[in-house]
């Protein structure tokens, strides 16, 4: 078995309720104690295909998703230095697209990582720092990344960012960092994780209750979807025909970006409906 394969399988080991979940209130601890010791390992983790649908007809380009992402994922602002314009990490941001026809409307697209089923970035990583999680998330291991940035070149959606500077959090700003997400050092590439830690946490909590997360719990799970005032972003399991995200993704307004490249993105857009 290659080291890479081994590593991926290691990450994919069914989760036991973590110490974190254990500590979360006495009720949860009580529930865990009631489970047989093997129960959590025995719950088969259902394979998922996590996906997202962004309804452009609901979206008003308010940018709440981008700020929610910065808040949740400890994305640094660096400083106000003009040379950093355009070089700050952004996992979820508004893409401004000028129309090809002169009088047509431009488009603003909220763009997270597309979490392609066949991701070009994974193929080029020489150290296995980026890999495809079995549930469809394109993950990045910050500690493995050597900063070669091949993945940034390969990604047709430009959804990867490089840390050109050491994040300069003041002592005061350090306090607001989300303890669930590791910060990234100088010289590594970072990207959207579909708020993997939130998915993981929900699964742990559901596992303690001996069940799988429900579609209702998943729909607004990532930070961007939770914040959206227009309910434009829906998350869920694309393989579950009953899920909201699968229903929306199979609708007539659905499309994906650069579909002809064969990357099979897991992010669908619903086109604007200019009434």
């Amino acid at each position: 078995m290659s080291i890479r394969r081994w590593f991926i399988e290691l990450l994919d080991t069914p989760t036991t309720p973590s110490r974190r979940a254990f500590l979360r209130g006495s009720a949860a601890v009580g529930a865990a104690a009631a489970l047989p010791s093997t129960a959590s390992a025995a719950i088969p983790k259902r394979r998922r295909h996590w996906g997202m649908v962004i309804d452009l007809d609901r979206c008003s380009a308010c940018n709440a998703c981008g700020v929610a992402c910065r808040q949740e994922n400890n994305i640094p602002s660096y400083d106000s230095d003009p040379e950093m314009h355009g070089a700050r990490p952004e996992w979820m941001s508004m893409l401004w697209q000028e129309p090809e026809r002169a009088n047509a409307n431009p488009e603003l697209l909220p763009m997270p990582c597309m979490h392609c089923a066949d991701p070009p970035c994974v193929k080029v990583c020489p150290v296995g720092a980026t890999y495809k999680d079995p549930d469809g998330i394109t993950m990045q291991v910050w500690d493995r990344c050597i900063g070669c940035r091949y993945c940034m070149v390969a990604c047709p959606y430009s959804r990867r960012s490089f840390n050109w500077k050491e994040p300069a959090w003041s002592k005061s700003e350090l306090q607001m960092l989300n303890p669930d997400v590791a910060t990234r050092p100088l010289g590594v590439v970072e990207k959207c994780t579909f708020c993997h830690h939130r998915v993981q946490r929900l699964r742990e909590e559901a596992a303690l209750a001996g069940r799988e997360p429900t579609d209702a719990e998943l729909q607004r799970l990532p930070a961007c979807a939770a914040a959206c005032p227009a309910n434009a972003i829906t998350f869920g399991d694309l393989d579950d025909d009953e899920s909201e995200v699968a229903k929306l993704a199979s609708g007539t307004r659905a499309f994906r970006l650069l579909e002809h490249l064969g990357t099979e993105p897991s992010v669908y857009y619903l086109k604007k409906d200019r009434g």
Partner: protein
Amino acid sequence: MGDDHTITRRLALAGIGAALVPACKREWLPPEADPTSRSQIKPYVPGAEDYATYEERWFASSCAQCAAACGIRVRVVEGRAVRIEGNPANPLNRGGIGARGMSGLQALYDPDRIAGPLLRIGGRLVPISWDDALSTLAKALADVRGRAPEQLLVISGRERGFTHELLARLARAFGTPNFVDGSPGHTAPLAHAMEQAVGVREAPAYGWSHASAIFSLEAGLLEDSCRSIYFARVAAAMRRDSARRARLIHAGPVFDLAAYNADRWLQLRPGTSGALALGVCHVLLREGTYDRGLVDRARGLTEFRALVVGFTPERTAELTGLPAAAIVELAHELWDRRPVLAVVDERSLAFSNAVETAGAAIALSALLGAIENGDGGLRLAPEPPLAPWPEIVIDEVARRALETPRLDGATRAPYGASRAVLDTLPAAILARPPSVALLYHANPVYARAQPRRWREALEAIPLVVSFSPYVDETVAEVADLVLPDHTYLERVEDATPAPGLPRAVAGIRRPVVAPLHDTRATADVIIELAHRLGKPIARAFSWPTARDAFEQRWLGLHAAARGTIVEASPRAFLERLYEAGFWADVDDASPRAVEFTFSPTWAPPHWDGEPARFPLALLPYRPLGYAEGSGANQPWLRSLRSRPGLADWTVAASIAPHDAPPGIKDGDLLRVISPYGALVLPAHLDRRMASGCVAIPTGGGHTAFGRWARNVGVNVMELLSATPASDTGASLLCTTRVRVEAA
């Protein structure tokens, strides 16, 4: 702290083992088990000792980043606030939240906050104790009251809220008529137009249950308006969740987010949306397609008809720059889609004809039958049933002083319909400087037109007191005494939303973390000051703390015995209120019968600066996120593009390519010159801009306000004319002409 108990629980949860714990004293513990030794790995946080390791708690509260006051939930881990989310239970935002709301964490953890009270000694601000600060101020105030109470000037940047009201109460009990309020998003013209039309001096709310179109009259609908989060939700729901997809029609000069989102964008000349509304009224009246129930009973209809006769599609086309056919078509579409939400906001009302524009929009709503209609349209903003505070007993000294004329000239001609006028103050202060000025949520040395005038004026006041938690320009340059406020995540406060939702909501704010610094809630400082001033002022402030004062009003909600929280005992009610973060009526207010009055007038927008020398209209705008500059210390907001197509962290002048000096390319430096000043900033060539306009965002060019705000862009306020609106006295952003040159 009660050592033994808290340590017991903490250690048990931290997995140290219960056996170790009973009767343990902290000094007996190994260093890694000492809770305060956490500072070895992470910075110590005030309040962390109440938390177990890894423990998280969620608190419901209300946002204070703009006047909308959305419901929020704050995630606090080990005493650190790490996440702000929308509160799904709150009927205003239903779990959604804007970029500003989430950036509240950066308002709290701004590294350049003021750590405690400051006093200017020899030109430098030096720390002093709260006791010294308060006694200094109390002594100065007692002296002023003994001589002439009207020598106290109070400026509040807020328009509502209990702290704002406490400040007004202090001014009244003290005896000064010089209480000047009004935020930059002054809603005075809209409130005035509502008063003329339906007799209620308040901005309207918007009902939308069966409406199938939103007609925005130059409104900053989905961008700078404090209702943008409400409208983002409403517009999405009206488009996708109703049987008939609603249309968003926007009339405005620039390609902003409202124009981007619109199904139909009518690009008109700036400040002419009132004319467009009257043009639509003309078509509706001519064709007899209007709501007869409301209109035929209304007062002033004859005069209104006489005015509207002149607004033929052809004349309206001349005024607005739109084709005549588009105006007729618009009228037909609005009639077909009624009820319609016709929306005006601070951006529509930034011109000298603000009252006329607001009046025209309200008249159009009346013709379309969209006023106090259960299906959708303008609603009278419902008030939550808060209990009043006891009346103030005013002594003879105060009574006499209250009758002296106001410094700002408000309530008298030519500002007869005003409550306060900010822009006349600098000249008035320089002519007769007051002795003491209190500034609450006000940074006029940066945020008002011609900030230099304000600096000179405030420098003429012997004692300038600011309550700002940040070293803003006013603090850095002119304040003599700084009594820093808590941020909204550290204090108890009310959060009554600005009108928008047709349902009564009373939000509250509660501390979610222990105060980071030696700051105090301004409401408590006001009460403490009143107590120190003694009778008769202290009698108007009979509460020991601000919280007691606030709870007295909230108990009115308890007494109403309706809405989302109904409890038998007041204590239980308040507990649930703190837990929920808001009280709301169960349903939207039922429609009230209104008597409608048409008060027709029309005036084109007035511009300062001769057209020959200054050919372009300057349109300053409050960009997405950091508004008039109060969010500029929050880097997340700075990272938003202020207009589609602009870079982040950029303050640029948007201009149509044919209006730019020859040879100028995107990003080249422009010099923008007005009769009042000149600025150099990059050009943003935008082929969608209306001809003859330059748009520049507010919020740039801070010289203080912390590391994130300083030295980013230029401050457009330096270019502006400081002529307030006649009658309402509102501050106007769009009244100045400029010219541009290559720099």
